[in-house]
């Protein structure tokens, strides 16, 4: 059974989705089988690819859409929300 989940989040930390926050984000995505697509302003990136995410240049205040497609989409969603929370709290710098 394949799920398709879309979430929208705002990135609030100072450096945005760069450096360690981006690395932790992509590593989290890599733990799941689901395809994970990150979208910003019509551009999209493979959530599992740090380089792809950097290319999006997500900065403080940007809103991104994350589409998760696959069997483990639900647990991927939870893990992603958790990591975004940590990034936004400044726990990952």
């Amino acid at each position, binding site marked *: 059974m394949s799920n398709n989940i879309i979430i929208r989040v705002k990135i609030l930390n*100072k*450096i945005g989705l*760069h*450096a*360690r926050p*981006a*690395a932790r984000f*992509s*590593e989290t995505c*890599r733990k799941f089988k689901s395809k994970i697509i990150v979208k910003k302003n019509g551009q999209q990136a*493979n959530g*599992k*690819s*740090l*380089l*792809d995410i*950097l*290319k999006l*240049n997500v*900065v403080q205040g940007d809103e991104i859409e994350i589409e998760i497609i696959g069997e483990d989409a639900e647990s991927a969603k939870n893990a992603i929300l958790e990591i975004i929370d940590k990034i936004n709290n400044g726990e990952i*710098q």
Partner: protein
Amino acid sequence: MLQLKGTVISPGISLGKAFILKEDNKASERTKYTIEDFYSARNVVKNFISTLMSSLEIQAAVRDILDVQLSILDDPELEDQVKKLLDNGVDLINAIHTAFDYYVNALANTSEYLRERVIDIRGIEDLLIRALRNNLVINIPTSNEDIILIAKELDPIRTIMIITTQNIKGIILEQGGATSHTAILLRSRGIPAIFNVRGIFDAVKNNDYIILDAYRNVIYVNPDNETISKYFNIINIINNINEEILKEIGREGLDINYPIRIMANVNNIADLELALHYNANGVGLLRTEFLFFNRSYPPSEDEQFNVYRQYFSRFEPKTIIIRLLDIGGEKIPPYLRVPSERNPQLGLRGIRLLLRNARDILISQIRAIVRAAREVKNTIVILIPMVSFVNEVLEVKKILNNIIGDDESLVTRIKLGAMVETPSAVLQSDVLAEHVDLLSIGTNDLTQYILAVDRESSTVNDMYSQFSPAALRAIDIVVKNAKKIKKDIEIDVCGELASEPLAVPLLIGLGVDAISVEPPNLPIIYYVLKRLNINEARELSYKALNLSNPDEVIELVKNFFIKKNIKVPQVIGEFV
């Protein structure tokens, strides 16, 4: 004896022989590599980085850098691209280059921040190729001689390899970014470094003797004996102080709480990073001239806005004192109309020039600063240069108030300051104080005008000294007059005197609120500050005010330092 300069990235002094790190030849190879070779190279690099991480007494900053690089290594998109290229008949080395090129080009077109991360990504690419060729380790001469390493660019991993080599005492790069991870690494390890040294490869060959003075931003190539012995004399003092400071306050910066605030002079992004590294209390003088020189038309308001915002936010939420364009004298950009004058030092310069011949620039600059201030949380002080009439302050204030309007949140966060660098500003400091929130005493020009001595003059420049009792009296007058009228007015000192260790007790004693220091000098100023108490400083400055000439002032402070066992380089003027 050849001298070169660049951008000071990590302050310090080192002496040694030049070793030039050669770029690898990236020509493609005939050897047939498969995707399996890619995977095994990846594993080799992974192990290599992990070993590096465990072998170093590693700081958080370094760990973070390696951490991100490990993540790049495992990137699935990168792997995909390499695979596809291999399937299409491209050889592995070229496939790796092409895949990395794709991302590097994409990132280079985004932000300044990402552009400087490109070198990290190139570093991984470089390591992968080296791993394929069984050539991972850099061969650095392992003699006992001290070495100054010279390269075009350096990625963080190679930097780590290099700085763990005992005999590498300093780094010179032809390029290199001030906010790059390489810069952060060198600063945090206290390895002297100067970047952006143009012409270094023409000037230096292997085994040349080099003095790297990353305090004063000078590189000497094959210096004469006199210069070498001068440096031999001071290098021990400097290094001992640095050791002591590092012991006291750690390598990661400082956490201080002194009677006066220690701020930093900032000319460019490298200064800002250094000020941040040393945990300065704010930017005491952000010079904006760098935005206006070397171009045929002035920067637009938008361009200025972007730069100011970048500087402000990097130092959030600390105070930034930003000086309006201060041009005059000899160097004038072509778009500014200034007739040649018989005595430019007393002519159209600083705020005079802005108000009379460049009002459009003045207004666009203030607008850009206010816009940038709106986006950040810092307190921003707009500093007016070369004030000699109270009216000049009132005119700028009117322009500023018009631009701010009735935006309540900005009224409290944007302040106005006047430079005190003319005798008239000293004598009218009480009147000026009524109209501004801050007075910043610029000792370089003030000394010249008080003493009526041109420091460039070959006949009288020896008479120029910022330790002149007359110049110190000017500071005393400003503090007393201004505070009488407005108790909470802030009085700062910028200019060379503020970066001079011997001046620290005098300035504290005279009752200034803050000093603004050249970033490489921050540690030595902290070092002196930690050893002073306010009452001794007051007594000392009172004595200094009543001496006859500069030499006596210097002698007074030197003896005081000896008594207190405060060790600073005793080469006054040599080491500002």
